[in-house]
């Protein structure tokens, strides 16, 4: 891969300026006794492997989970700042656009094949009092839309906690409260969505291609758009229970870049239970979670109709950590039931191959699609195994399977004439986004190899293989594009300070 795009250089310059500025500020303000580690490591004085399994961010060890559940309060207050940057390159297997009427670059991000500085983050993280601590992440993305090098800042995950622990030989009870902006960001296990599977060091595309095209709401659908308060208890390192409520918020510090004032109608409850057991170098967890949210169809209009999302899930995590070996496995099953407002869903109409959309009744002659289903279901199954040797060399293999109901509203694209126009006289829809099956079913594997040359740096190579994409393994777009054409190679260099 080569850095070829002029626009890429612009983005890199911007990002490098940002990263070097922050690093300079750190270096000037804090040099003695710092080990050059991120803020939490400076707070405890410990190596990354103390909290992260095999040094593999973001997977937490038993000790890392205790650090989080006790409110990030272990250690000494220090300068609560960290920074991180990711350089990455993405290459999709097939980027041929079958639609000669469209710009061939419309379909595929222009960063395809380029090595770019893709994201940079700053963190405010650390102990505040004996009982209060937290972290706040803001991320600068150099790439925001499929064809634009437009850099911008946005809020990323944030989690502030109050925690207390009553422990003596007879009892061990942790209880606490969390204020966070992403359901499951507060979770200490890596089988929950926010810190599980493919969170680090960032998605391959920054768009919708080359990765799972849809997920249940609890798996990132509300990330950085809401603010939630929860209470939790962890009893005898065995039973964990948590209840939280999420609301849309006017607080832009937690939702900057994703601000939707009226995304959630009222309060969305979230619950989580887990059973954990440790023996020898082994650690095992079984858990369940659930969330119910009513979302406004227009997130800027609190009087717009709503859609009800009811999610529940089961997950488990196993870890074996005994130097020099670290083996971890996560499995997660999420089920979602989507119920549309009676005025929105259950409309007459079916997929019309001439107009390329589901079209009938009030929508005739428009480019809007009729929502014929009154409800939908979506299931996401994921399983991942990772191994790290000497906290230096590692690899992982994961499987993902998304299955759900068929809905003509998902259907897009013309089945007949690839040069045709839609009912508005516009060129037909981009082929990569086309869906002729009306299903979102997507299955595949991701394999990764990585090396940690330093404890705060990781270099990795991922390959994602799709066996099914948007409901079909072949010709999912109606123009002959196959699921495997979306196979994606992803290279990254991740560093933190």
């Amino acid at each position: 891969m080569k850095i070829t795009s002029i626009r890429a250089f612009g983005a890199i310059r911007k990002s490098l300026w940002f990263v070097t500025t922050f690093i300079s500020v750190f270096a000037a303000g804090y040099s003695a006794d710092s080990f050059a580690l991120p803020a939490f490591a400076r707070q405890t004085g410990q190596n990354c492997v103390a909290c992260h399994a095999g040094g593999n961010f973001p997977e937490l060890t038993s000790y890392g989970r205790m650090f989080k559940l006790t409110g990030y309060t272990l250690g000494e207050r220090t300068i609560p700042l960290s920074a991180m940057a990711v350089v990455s390159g993405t290459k999709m297997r097939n980027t041929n656009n079958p639609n000669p009427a469209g710009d061939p670059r419309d379909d595929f991000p222009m960063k395809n094949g380029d090595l770019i500085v893709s994201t940079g983050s700053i963190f405010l993280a650390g102990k505040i009092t004996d009982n209060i601590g937290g972290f706040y992440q803001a991320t600068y993305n150099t790439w925001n839309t499929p064809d634009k090098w437009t850099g911008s800042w946005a809020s990323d995950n944030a989690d502030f906690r109050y925690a207390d622990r009553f422990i003596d030989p007879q009892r061990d009870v942790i209880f606490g409260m969390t204020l966070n902006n992403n359901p499951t960001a507060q979770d200490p296990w890596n089988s929950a969505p926010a810190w599980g599977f493919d969170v680090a060091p960032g998605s391959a595309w920054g768009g919708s291609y080359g990765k799972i095209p849809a997920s249940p709401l609890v798996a990132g659908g509300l990330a950085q758009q809401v603010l939630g308060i929860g209470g939790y208890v962890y009893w005898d390192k065995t039973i964990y229970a948590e209840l939280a409520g999420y609301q849309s918020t006017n607080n832009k510090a937690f939702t900057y870049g994703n601000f939707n004032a009226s995304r959630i109608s009222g309060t969305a409850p979230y619950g989580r239970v887990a059973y954990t057991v440790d023996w020898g170098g082994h650690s095992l967890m079984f858990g369940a979670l659930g969330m119910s949210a009513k979302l406004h169809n227009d997130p800027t209009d609190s009087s717009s109709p709503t859609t009800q999302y009811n999610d529940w899930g089961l997950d488990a995590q196993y870890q074996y950590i005994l130097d020099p070996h670290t083996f971890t496995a996560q499995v997660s099953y999420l089920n979602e039931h989507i119920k549309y407002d009676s005025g929105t869903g259950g409309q007459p109409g079916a997929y019309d191959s001439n107009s390329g959309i589901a079209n009938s009744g009030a929508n005739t002659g428009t480019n809007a699609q009729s929502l014929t289903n009154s409800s939908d279901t979506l299931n996401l199954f994921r399983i991942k195994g990772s191994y790290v040797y000497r906290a230096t060399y590692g690899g992982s293999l994961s499987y993902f399977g998304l299955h759900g109901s068929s809905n003509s509203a998902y259907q897009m694209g013309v089945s007949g004439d690839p040069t045709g126009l839609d009912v508005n006289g516009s060129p037909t829809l981009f082929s990569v986004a086309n869906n002729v099956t009306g299903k979102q079913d997507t299955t595949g594997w991701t394999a990764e190899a990585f090396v940690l040359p330093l404890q705060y740096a990781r270099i990795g190579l991922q390959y994602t293989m799709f066996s099914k994409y948007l409901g079909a393994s072949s010709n999912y777009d109606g123009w002959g594009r196959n699921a495997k054409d979306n196979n994606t190679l992803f290279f990254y260099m991740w560093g933190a300070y």
Partner: protein
Amino acid sequence: MKKLLTIGCLAATVGIVACTNLERSRTLGNPDISATVMAQQVCSNCHGVEGTSISPNFPNLAGQTEEYFVLQMTGFRGQSRADPAGFEYMWGLSRGLSDDQIKGLATYFGKQTPVKNPAASSEKLEVISAGEAIYKNGVAESNVPACTSCHGDVGQGNAQFPRLAGQHADYLTKQLMVFQRTDERPEGSIMKTIAHGLTEQNMKDVAAYLQTL
């Protein structure tokens, strides 16, 4: 109004920052926090609230001799003990401890009652008896002396010579490797000479035996 708000915020900030909870604090570097609170709130995460750890990554501390414990903690604090398992976890945790806190922690863990290591039952009998022979008699052909002379007949330890009974075999094997092959534990340099003649199998055998005690 704005001024009032600013003053209020400042007062709240000072209040929060000043807020300490000495009875259940996880703060390191505050000499006012008792060793018992520190042992329960911090050390217990890896070593267990009564000094019995679950993971072999972390040594059992229950019943450990106070002299040895103090020697190790000051070694971590001064960064002279530099084996990876030590510095990755312990340099940072020990850096702000006072002498009194270290002594208090030594007393806290020293008075805890050691329990039988649950991994002991999985050891093979021939391994245990081979380890027992090494522990009690040494290895004559390699000039390895009997361990009992310093660590006691039943591995109970003596002053600066640590208690080994019931310790995790994995931890003991790795530490014997550190002594034999590195200079990362200068305070235990005597062990470099003693462990010099041990084969890797010898180390595993004697560690397996000690785990059963």
